[in-house]
């Protein structure tokens, strides 16, 4: 089977479509459907995961993964797919290796290539493929050796009408950007590894050491990668950093409804909440809204009925609010459901679970790397039911 790209189908397509002789497995990302055609039994996740990997690779190669981009680079796409698949079986999916096999197109390289006629296909088998660390390429050289780790935590929560939490959990990832010369062997330890309930690792992490010592020990791939993703155990109570006060009401008979939202901080440990956006899918009956925000900007799309309000920073002294009226379709009865409010926010320099990296050590290389760590808390799927 070959992975093919096909654009534009309706949303809500089931990922697996059976046809008399083939099965179509599709993945919808970046507004493009990536479809795999298979003929026989295969674990569907296998295919889906592979398609996602293809998308990730394209993104890695081209920066964005859009239809235009794929059309422009169709040759590279072919070459990459050729390397990633052999007769339907995934071959090389690590982008580190792929990049060695086929150099990603950059403006500079295209210029150079046209002049010198050199290729952007590597002619040596990447040694990584054969070594024990297939994810890292060899001969990496940097003048500035640096390793950055971002601890990003996302809060998934459902908050009910009265403001009490129905579910809340923290999912976190540690994304790393490692630019180190040679074959460094890193260990990363946490102050409180107990917090991590369920983890999944990049293949580079040595599982045994984690099991015994709760230390992440690994030879990193070169460049950006996701070192680990984790789940903070549900027993720990999640401190919800924001609250939303809302008052949305429709009145029977009248064509007006009241709408009022206030967002405020709660348990933020002294950090400011930034990048707050509130979005809400209004019921079909809502024709328009006339609202005045105390800060930020808001947009209501009368076609999709999507209200979004870009709040920005929350100033605890002056809580942002959005007030106004909704005009409803005349004659229609009042919608029986209230919209849910989706919330996005960011808190810099705070891992809401309290996870802290203790130290990072490097072995195997002589130089001293520059190390950095950043914490961030974000809203994941944060919903307020009204």
């Amino acid at each position, binding site marked *: 089977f070959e992975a093919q790209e096909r654009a534009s189908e309706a949303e809500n397509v089931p990922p697996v479509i059976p046809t008399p002789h083939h099965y179509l497995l599709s993945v919808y990302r970046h507004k493009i459907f990536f479809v795999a055609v298979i003929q026989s039994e295969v674990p569907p996740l296998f295919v*889906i995961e592979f398609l996602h990997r293809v998308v990730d690779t394209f993104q890695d190669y081209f920066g964005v993964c859009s239809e235009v981009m794929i059309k422009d680079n169709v040759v590279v796409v072919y070459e990459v797919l050729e390397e990633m698949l052999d007769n339907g079986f995934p071959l090389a999916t690590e982008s580190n290796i792929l990049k060695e096999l086929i150099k990603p197109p950059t403006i500079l390289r295209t210029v150079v290539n046209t002049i010198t006629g050199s290729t952007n296909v590597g002619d040596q088998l990447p040694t990584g493929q054969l070594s024990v660390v297939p994810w890292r390429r060899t001969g990496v050289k940097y003048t500035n050796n640096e390793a950055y780790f971002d601890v990003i935590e996302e809060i998934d929560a459902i908050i009910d009408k009265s403001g009490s939490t129905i579910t809340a959990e923290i999912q976190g990832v540690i994304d790393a950007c490692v630019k180190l010369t040679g074959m460094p062997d890193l260990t990363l330890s946490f102050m409180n590894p107990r917090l991590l309930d369920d983890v999944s690792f990049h293949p580079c992490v040595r599982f045994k050491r984690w099991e015994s010592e709760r230390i992440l020990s690994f030879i990193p791939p070169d460049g950006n990668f996701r070192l680990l993703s984790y789940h903070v155990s549900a027993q720990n109570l999640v401190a919800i950093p924001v609250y939303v006060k809302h008052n949305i009401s429709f009145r029977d008979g009248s064509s007006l409804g009241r709408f009022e939202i206030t967002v405020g901080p709660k348990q933020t440990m002294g950090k400011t909440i930034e990048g707050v956006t509130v979005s809400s899918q209004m019921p079909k009956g809502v024709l328009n809204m006339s609202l005045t925000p105390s800060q930020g900007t808001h947009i209501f799309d009368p076609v999709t009925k999507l209200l979004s309000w870009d709040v920005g920073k929350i100033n605890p002294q002056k809580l942002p609010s959005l007030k106004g009226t909704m005009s409803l379709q005349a004659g229609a009865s009042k919608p029986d459901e209230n919209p849910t409010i989706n919330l996005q926010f960011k808190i810099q320099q705070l891992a809401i679970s309290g996870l802290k990296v203790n130290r990072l050590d490097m072995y195997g290389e002589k130089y001293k790397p520059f190390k950095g760590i950043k914490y961030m808390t974000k809203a994941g799927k944060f919903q307020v039911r009204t």
Partner: protein
Amino acid sequence: RHDDLKEMLDSNKDSLKLEAMKRIVAMIARGKNASDLFPAVVKNVACKNIEVKKLVYVYLVRYAEEQQDLALLSISTFQRGLKDPNQLIRASALRVLSSIRVPIIVPIMMLAIKEAASDMSPYVRKTAAHAIPKLYSLDSDQKDQLIEVIEKLLADKTTLVAGSVVMAFEEVCPERIDLIHKNYRKLCNLLIDVEEWGQVVIINMLTRYARTQFLSPNQNESLLEESAEKAFYGSDEEDAKDAKAEAASLAKRKPYVMDPDHRLLLRNTKPLLQSRNAAVVMAVAQLYFHLAPKAEVGVIAKALVRLLRSHSEVQYVVLQNVATMSIKRRGMFEPYLKSFYIRSTDPTQIKILKLEVLTNLANETNISTILREFQTYIRSMDKDFVAATIQAIGRCATNIGKVRDTCLNGLVQLLSNRDELVVAESVVVIKKLLQMQPAQHSEIIKHMAKLTDNIQVPMARASILWLIGEYCEHVPKIAPDVLRKMAKSFTNEEDIVKLQVINLAAKLYLTNSKQSKLLTQYVLNLAKYDQNYDIRDRARFIRQLIVPTEKSGALNKYAKKLFLAQKPAPILESSFKDRDHFQLGSLSHLLNAKAVGYQELPGWPDEAPDPSVRNVEVPEWTKCTSREKRKEKVEKPFYSDSEGESGPTESADSEPESVSEESESSSSEGTSSSGSEEEEEGSGDQSEDKEEEEKRKKKKEKEAPRKASLESAGRKGRGETSSEEASASESSSSDSESGSEVQESPAEVEAKQRKAPASTKPSPRANAVGPKEISLLDLDDFTPPPPQPVPTSSIVSTSLVTDLEGLTLTDTSLAPAVSDPISPCIPPGISHILPADHLNPCCPQQQAPHQCMPQGTPWVLQLSWRRLSPRLGWVLPTGKAPAGCWGRGASPVLSESLAPGDTASVVMGIDFCDSTQAANFQLCTHTRHFYVSIQPPVGELMAPVFMSENEFKKEQGKLTGMSEITEKLTLPEKCRSDHAIVQQVTSAANVGRVPCGADNEYR
């Protein structure tokens, strides 16, 4: 047309060629035909420039099949490429060569694959593995040769190759499971280092492999739930079934100890649950689901829940699987209930799947929270989802009786919802619910009758009409009224509603003909001229049936019965219920239909295949070596046994059959061994069918402990004994059941001789102190397995053996406490009364003399014969038991001629000395020899022992050396009710062995 391109391709400059190739590839990508450029392109296959080469390859693979002759031109280039010093070039040459689908070059491909399979570079070998399925799909005649290559590659030790070759194996010869044997352990050990795609394939393959090669770890536990005795049955049967099981019983499988290789697989796959690749996680999850003992399956839940955070497609697949799992193993996902709560942003299909999972997870304790969630969902904007929610509520209500009324009320409230779909859906669900308990709810029916005016959805209207018709007695006033209204609008209704109107009319006519006769006539007349033939037919049929005419007298009478028969309530169940016969995580499972090439997941084998096939002569990998050796060491003596046995057995085999035939005549009347064996237990005269016997046994089982508890209440001194005896008898009865089952399975096996290891009384109390106690208790870990008369053929009814095992067990386990109370009635250390004798009150008591070993804590093996034909019998303990064990026959030779039906017994003691080695001895009759080997499996046979709490504590106090694990015990269900007080069950099991039984209390 493409002259410019051709020119460019012909030029000397690489850059021009490259440009041309790029344009050609772009053409292919746009779907334009570029095949007329073939000759020009093929020329460039030998181009030095690698990028040009690659693009030519792309082109070749695309068009070679169309232009086979021209494609042959390129072959020589590839052949040269195969010898290139650069492994990358070798590999890519092989790749393209194998991708060119030209039948003529099959031999060349075959040769190339063979060569590449022994290439230095693992990368090339990997490519060779990839080439195998390609060649196979081109020409399936090459299968045999390809299998050879696969075999060779399977032996490869590099992680790079492993995944690919297993993939090839799956494509070409998934049925050749025998190829895996030798590589099984290697694959398990390499698994974690294999690249992720390979992991998925290997795990899936190993799942199938394990299903064919290992015994089900759950058979005992699942059976245990049904009844305690069944548990023994599972293992006994296997053990008895074939001689090899004896070897397998080394792996101590009773009540099942996992084959170490099975364990290895589970252990090595577990870390992969933390893989970042969802496919790997899913593969491991299905492996655990299909292979792991129940207690361990739970670990996958967490990982699966984690996958729910992933892309929606992944979510979709995972949820499908979770839905299936949650039906079977509800407990597994319960802690993660909240993770399945639905967000308004989820796509509809995911919402519905989550709903499915939530419904499956609903139980008495969490139902209220789930229902509260459902209430919010009902207000959602997504109408499909709302409908699904209402159905989910219906299912919750059916499954959990407690909340039925609440649900019903909630649904009735929904009837006043403005949205028609919601109302319709709830009407349908209410209908189903009402059907379960119609009597109380005439109010609701009335309410719904009123709704007929408003609801337009045909399905809902039809449901209401059906309800009214069905329960028209409850609403005598409304029903005719509704009919009248419906009759008025009959012509405008949908077909489904019309049918129900006719139905309603017919029913009303039968119950209340006075009021509705005319209406019915009217409706039927209308229906007669309907456009739909179904309706016309129905009308005609009903008219004939209910309206009395002179012809249709006979049916008429029954009309009422026909129409007003009780209808069984529909069972609302999950659509995922039947899915579990597909392997989880597979495409077929997702579609709930068999996909092409789906490999059925084989059922568990009934008997363990020889584990030695996985042994590798030369232990090649470091990790395994020691284990391997150890294993071999252990296995060796055993094998030699079975081999040694097999000789005589086979010769003996023929005879038992003839004998058993003789016996069959009599046994057909029911004097089967199990019957006779009961005699020995004291319940003498049983000659019923085995099934009946089983039933009786069960009953007895109930009685026995009750009696025992009475006894214990009555007589203080004897209390312990009796209670223990009670349990003993229980276990024994259970055993005997299993035994009888065993006999059933080997069809002709009607045993005449029986052998019973009887319990021995532990040495006098003096011995039972300190370390001795421990050893005693350790001993209960060792139960004699059903001595395996190697030809399972007839002779020894294992049942009794196991019977008495039970006794042995309990006796020893209670050793310190027991010895005293009993000793008064029997000369200590010499002969004992079979404890079971005291038990069955309804039966004549019988005493079987025992002789006990002087040595303290031996097993006494009582062998009793029951013969139908006179024969000489004697026991000759050969005493060739291995290290630390010696069999000592109290009466080395017992020769006796036995009359038919007579019972003789010999007692012999074997001291296993806390080891698990097998003891072997011979049973000889004048015609044959039977080799018996008794091997004490660790932690076998949990024999529940009943005693009062106090006694238990007393016991506990004595056994201070022991480490104790006290768990909440689940008693074999039957005894539970009877013995709330005597709830302590001690069972014999190795303390360390936790997984095999959370079911009993271990000491």
